[in-house]
């Protein structure tokens, strides 16, 4: 059975390693913070200017001066640091953030990503997405395998305006975990419990290679 968004977040959480600095985008990526494996300690970065994001505040703790990049009220953990946005993107550009998880509208078999603009629709802006994808050492895309019309979001080429090129390393969807090897395509590494390789193949328009050691996700 395909995962729900919480399942996707749980699977992504398995990618976390002790000591990592991580930037989580809005949507499913934000949920990953709820599933950090026991015994490992990570620091969450928010590009508006903070390291060490904690849980949402209680009513009493709410502070208008303390928000994340999604403009949500948050708290901080011990060891947190505030800085300005220029420094925040400096650390992102310099590759100090170990892992970036973000959503996407389309991902290509080359690792290109489109997630900021749909032609003929009101464009709200790219925010920090272009900076993140151009600079992050390790980018995982968290998204549904297909769009609401049922069309594949894993394509030979993105059809929407790009956010960045050759940058996505891994895609985790409700159906599968896929690595991207530039020049090769999507490598199917894991399928969601009860999802067949054939279903993933059907729903992936970009070139798909089934890894010889493809296995079922453990959630």
């Amino acid at each position, binding site marked *: 059975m395909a995962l729900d968004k919480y399942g996707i977040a749980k699977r992504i959480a398995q990618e976390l390693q002790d000591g990592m600095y991580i930037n989580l985008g809005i949507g499913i990526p934000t949920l990953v913070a709820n599933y950090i494996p026991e015994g490992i300690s990570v620091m969450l970065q928010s590009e508006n200017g903070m390291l060490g994001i904690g849980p*949402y*505040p209680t009513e009493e703790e709410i502070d208008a001066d303390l928000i994340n990049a999604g403009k949500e*009220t*948050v708290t901080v953990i011990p060891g947190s640091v505030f800085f300005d*946005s220029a420094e925040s993107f400096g650390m992102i*550009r310099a590759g100090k953030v170990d892992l970036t998880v973000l959503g996407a509208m389309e991902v290509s078999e080359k690792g290109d990503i489109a997630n900021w603009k749909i032609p003929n629709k009101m*464009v709200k*802006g790219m925010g920090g997405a272009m900076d993140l994808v*151009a600079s992050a050492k390790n980018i995982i895309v968290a998204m549904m395998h297909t769009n609401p019309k049922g069309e594949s979001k894993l394509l030979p080429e993105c059809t929407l305006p790009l956010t960045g090129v050759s940058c996505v390393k891994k895609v985790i969807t409700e159906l599968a975990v896929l690595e991207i090897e530039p020049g090769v395509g999507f490598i199917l590494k894991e399928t969601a419990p009860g999802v067949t390789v054939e279903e993933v193949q059907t729903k992936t328009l970009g070139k798909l290679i089934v890894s010889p050691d493809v296995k079922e996700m453990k959630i």
Partner: protein
Amino acid sequence: MNKIVADATTAIHDIQDGATIMLGGFGLCGIPENCIRALADKNVKELTCISNNAGVDEFGLGILLKTRQIKKMMSSYVGENAEFERQLLNGELEVDLIPQGTLATRIQMAGMGIPAFFTPAGYGTEIAQGKEVRVFNGKHYLMEHALHADFAIVKAWKGDPAGNLLFRKTTRNFSTSMAKAGTITIAEVEELVPLGALDPDQIHVAGIYVHRIFQGNQYEKRIEKRTVQIK
């Protein structure tokens, strides 16, 4: 060194129609509420506003959008504002969308006297159109230019008569860089403290960058997304 002015009205008295203004803040966090009200009262028009976001309907830069004082916005994300959308779709408003890190760094570089620099953000996208591309260590970069403004307006937590500023939590955002990039920089603060009251090791913006400072009042500090822990 006394840069104190009476209030927001005095601080912005020489901002004229057509001025380019940077305004600090991320969403509604850390925005210069007093100066935005004063700009609305002065009804100065045709402004180019450099600010990461465009406020919401009725608050933040949304106030100046509603009164049609803004000709152009330079931002990274402008999506929380129905009036903004209406003006944009009607061609009444120009918008220059800039990747957030590029925006922050272009402003930072203006305050450092560096006219141009290279960043990888936007390479291979429509943002790269017309920009010089260079390869360093096998990676592609775009040349971007420093971004200056006639006026920079920021809101800090504490400040002193020399213009030294201290910010609280995530209100620092674009404000520290903007404070250094304005031809004239105006700071409104929640609390004006005496000279010498701030620890010289702990100042976020040195007074050398700040031309006018005043203690603001009636801060609303609206919250866009009030997210609360579910116990």
